[in-house]
């Protein structure tokens, strides 16, 4: 048993799970901008629930990628190069999404806002789908040769698992966002979110459950099978709690579903980090893909201090912005400036 690579495998699983948990609801809120919100005020309600936190949530993705690079460079190199085009889509989606959050309110016209709303919704959708596909493929395998490079051209990564994983994260994010909105908003948005949550839960959790079960079929272990069972129970609990109006508990139970589902997937594939569909000999595992014990030891010390600190101050952020947002709180959009419009470059001084 290799202790440090195992610890780092767990750490990376934790980082990805943290990413899906946190950015899960803000990706979902992004998609709901188009699917759920009925007018500009509601869209601003949605945006302001995630406004202070989405950027911090996204850093979980950067940290997961960075930690993979540092702890398992061969995993990082093979996965990212094999999925070149899908990750390009994720990058462009994340770029537009980030910029859209910040720029949407900066010009007071409907067409400007509409354009950025699409950027937020589509960007969130594509990012969620791409990340889901990437994670699914790292658990089900890619056509990698002995050097860890993809064989078979730019689209050789495609398999139905990619679609399943993509849908899993998209659907989970939508549901998670509904739970989040029920918890973080008030008024009509809150009640609609809760009733959507209750109605859609069984459908929206299917792809993620399907992915978890597929992985169990491919490489299940007793404890991971048990985790899947408990996850299903957590999902049922989330549903009942939402029906009873306990929004906080419903959100927590759905979070437990994600954590358990994710644990069952990562746990099942362990110690393989990226299977090769060409030959099991070419599988990347925690032993043949990892960095040296020295590097992993150093990173362990830093992460042992750093990660709890991150969790602490991010939790504090959620505490600071714990109040519910409602349509009644949204002020008019500001317009400014005609009085001081400048003509510096167009007329003579």
């Amino acid at each position: 048993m290799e202790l440090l690579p195992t610890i780092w495998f767990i750490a990376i699983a934790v980082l990805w799970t943290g990413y899906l948990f946190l950015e899960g609801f803000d990706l979902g809120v992004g998609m709901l901008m188009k699917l759920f919100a009925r007018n500009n005020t509601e869209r601003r309600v949605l945006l302001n629930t995630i406004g202070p936190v989405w950027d911090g949530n996204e850093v979980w993705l950067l940290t997961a990628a960075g930690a993979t690079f540092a702890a398992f460079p061969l995993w990082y190199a093979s996965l990212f190069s094999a999925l070149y085009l899908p990750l390009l889509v994720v990058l462009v989606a994340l770029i537009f999404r980030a910029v859209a959050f910040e720029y949407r309110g900066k010009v007071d016209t409907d067409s400007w806002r509409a354009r950025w709303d699409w950027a937020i919704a589509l960007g969130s959708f594509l990012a969620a789908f791409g990340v889901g596909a990437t994670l699914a493929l790292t658990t089900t395998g890619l056509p990698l040769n002995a050097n860890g490079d993809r064989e078979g051209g730019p689209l050789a990564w495609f398999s139905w698992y990619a679609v399943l994983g993509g849908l899993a994260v998209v659907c989970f994010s939508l549901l998670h966002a509904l739970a989040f909105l029920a918890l973080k908003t008030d008024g009509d948005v809150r009640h609609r979110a809760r009733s959507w949550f209750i109605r859609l839960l069984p459908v929206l959790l299917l792809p993620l459950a399907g992915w978890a079960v597929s992985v169990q079929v491919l490489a299940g272990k007793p404890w991971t099978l048990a985790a899947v069972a408990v996850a299903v129970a957590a999902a049922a609990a989330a549903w009942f709690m939402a029906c009873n109006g306990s929004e906080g508990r419903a959100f927590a139970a759905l979070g437990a579903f994600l954590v358990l589902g994710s644990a069952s997937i990562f746990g099942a594939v362990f110690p393989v980090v990226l299977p090769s569909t060409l030959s099991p000999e070419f599988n990347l595992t925690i032993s043949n893909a990892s960095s040296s014990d020295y590097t992993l030891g150093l990173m362990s010390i830093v992460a042992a201090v750093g990660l709890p600190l991150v969790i602490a101050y991010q939790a504090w952020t959620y505490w600071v912005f714990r109040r519910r947002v409602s349509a009644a709180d949204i002020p008019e959009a500001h317009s400014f400036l005609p009085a001081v419009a400048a003509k510096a470059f167009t007329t003579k001084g």
Partner: protein
Amino acid sequence: MDALEIARWQFGITTVYHFMMVPLTIGLGLVVAIMQTMWHRTGKQEYLRMTKFWGKLFLINFIMGVATGIVQEFQFGMAWSEYSRFVGDVFGAPLALEALLAFFVESTFLGLWIFGWKQLKPGIHLACLWIAVVGSLFSAYFIIVANSWMQHPVGVEMINGRPVMTDAWAVFTNNTALVAVPHTLMGALAVAGGFLLGIAWYHLWRRRRDGIDTVDANGNVVPGEAGIPGRDRADHTVWIRSLRIGAVVAMISFAGTALTGDLQGKLMFEQQPMKMAAAEAACHDGTGFSVLSIGNLGSQNCDDIVALIEVPGILSFLAKGDFTTEVQGVNSLLGQYKADYGTHLPDNPIYGERAGQEIQYVPVMEVTYWGFRMMIGFGGLAALAALVALWVTRKGTVPASPWLMRLAVFGILAPFGANAAGWIFTEMGRQPFVVAPNPDLNGIDQVFMFTAAAVSPGVSAGELLTSLVVLTTVYALLLVVEVKLLVKYIRGGIVSAMPELAHAPVDENEDATPGGNGGPGTGKPADDVLAFAY
């Protein structure tokens, strides 16, 4: 172009672009934090206005740095998988630590700052900004540690053909990084200085054009008031103070870059002598610094290059600190590099079509020679302009000339140019290596890597070209959007960042309620729940 060339163009374009946003983020963040600290200490309205206005521009720019930064982190694995495999053990750690210890801090505390104007106590709110700024400094440190390891690998042993970290202290206190970090931070401050100077000049000029400010017989400013929100006497104070802060920051940072740059240069003459010889287009050993060289700088053949104007002794001073020691030129270094690292790339499939080709040890001298000079030239120009600006505005405002105003505004670009040129110089000057050999590393196997071996073998030229085109197009589009927004908010002046000034009478003790419409039935101000940044 083959895959390698496309991947290099992509890395170059995305990095230079990313590094337009980053120095402004670092420099302006620091300046805004100082402004808010002044407001916190003195309670003066003009410091609040400065914080809000420059803070708004800071945020418009910050998000672009965030968005383009993700590309940087993914790109190593996507386009440079062989590089990632080779260096991951030592290079991945600073990247992971950057995310864990810097990005989290930056993004979380900036979120608190943007939205927390009402939720947090003023002192804590201010602390959040400072923490975010310190996070950005840490981020700069970690990424430069990573880059410096490519320039000057230390703290590793070769095990099974890969460098494995054995001494983290050596990696994180690499002398290359210790001089590059302050140099880069000073460069970032220069960008912020120029930015403040240019924009503040524009506003002072506009106040004169609109007849709000006038000058008396002695040339001293007489600040006035216009009956328009935000264009009062305090507005004048905001701009003249911003201008002076900008000018002082620009001058200090230029002195700082010169000082640290000198240290860095002396180190580079030891660590990467070919880069520095190429920076000089110095073919033969000598002591003279070339002021102007002509000829075919792009050729690997030095015979075409003629130094038209040369100052004897200066090159020796830059490299060694005296005026007589001969500095090795390209020709004598070439023999040495060939002897140490071979004349041809090995016949290894990792080099693709380039296997067995002759190695070009001389970087593209057009780029290194002019990159080096543009870096120094733009930096110096900005510092000189800042000095002149301080003198010209000593009586409290700027001249009425629109042309001087335009010059000041376009001058904002000079420090950006200096930063870009410096990075292009140092990265192109490292070629043909992606990890340059460390000349002190005798004893261990030579730790170095040719760029030709670094690109992803499984990724096709078509994929790379697709991403190059897509990213370049997206970046160009977003640059237009960012600049348009910046211009809009700059022209809008203080009210663009403080709409409350336009919607309600100014009350120094309390911010006005935006829009004036409280939540129905609550009786509370509308922004009680959130500051509504979105």
